[in-house]
């Protein structure tokens, strides 16, 4: 997904919004790959999911507030990945990251395939687990 190894040194930071199973997994992997990572989550307990290999920073707060995004140093990030449980939150954070913090690459997880199609016109890269799972299942049963 968000591999940008060639990115300019200044913006090597990756900000991950949402420290659920996916956010925690991503944070661990990117950390291990040598990226600087900041993870944001509303709930302090969420950070318990972070794996041992995670060596980045944690910010507790609601990513809908600009204050919280500033605390995560978003203006210095080369990439933002929004993977909370809530589609609308991921989409809004991604748009704020682009417009206010000028983050070059933003990705959002969007469960609702209709929203995914709609938001592509706003220049946001979206990943829909629903679509991916459906594709994988269709292929697995040999109907692809």
């Amino acid at each position: 997904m968000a591999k940008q190894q060639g990115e300019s040194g200044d913006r090597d930071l990756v900000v991950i919004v949402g420290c659920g199973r996916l956010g925690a997994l991503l944070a661990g992997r990117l950390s291990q790959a040598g990226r600087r990572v900041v993870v944001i989550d509303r709930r302090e307990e969420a950070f318990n999911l972070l794996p041992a290999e995670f060596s980045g920073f944690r910010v507790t707060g609601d990513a809908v507030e600009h204050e919280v995004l500033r605390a995560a140093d978003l203006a210095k990030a080369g990439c933002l990945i929004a993977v909370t449980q809530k589609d609308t939150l991921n989409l809004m954070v991604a748009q704020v990251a682009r417009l206010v913090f000028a983050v070059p690459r933003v990705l959002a997880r969007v469960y609702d395939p209709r929203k995914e199609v709609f938001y592509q016109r706003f220049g946001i890269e979206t990943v829909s687990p629903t679509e991916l799972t459906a594709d994988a299942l269709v292929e697995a049963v040999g109907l692809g």
Partner: protein
Amino acid sequence: MRILMVGQGELAYYLARRLSARKHRVTVVIADHHEASALAQRLNVNTIAGDGTDMQVLDNGGARRADAVLALTPHDEDNLAICQMAKGMFGVPRTLALVNDPDNEEIFHQLQVSVAISATRILSTIFQEEAVFEQIAEIMALAEGKVAVSEVHLDAQSPALDRPLQDLDLPRDALIGGIIRQGHVIVPCGSTRLLAGDRLILIATAESLEAAMARLAGAQR
């Protein structure tokens, strides 16, 4: 007008009541099933129980024919999504969103929201102004708060009474847009004289508001 509202609680109830009393055709999308049916019984409005951030629900609520969509949920991200989909998917001409974090106001404007209202900012502005002038109430803020429309109450101590407006020496960026006198609205001209008890609709930039108030209500209250 056909108005599609997404919201809940007292705000949705009173607003729906007020808008339908003014002959607008109001549909309210409410997340909670019980609240939706209760509202439909209390008011003569259409209600739909469902998630207002779901395109299908907006479509069922008549988004395609709506003249305006009002997004009044307590969550900024939901209000933004509702307005963006209303405009982008269904071509709704006017969208209004409630904003909790005042920092989000400007970004909402950039992202297809026609009107973004931050209750936090309005209340804090009023509070600050109340501390200086007890006779002024901000009605609305335009251009991210750079221009304010305020209502100013003139009492008998006002230094602006019984003189033509053109002699008041108001700041250049302040304008009296209307005078409410005994229930009537007067559109003033240079020779209009202000009377005690008048309520003025004052349009002023943030910088000139204080000087305008000094001319109208007195140096400080």
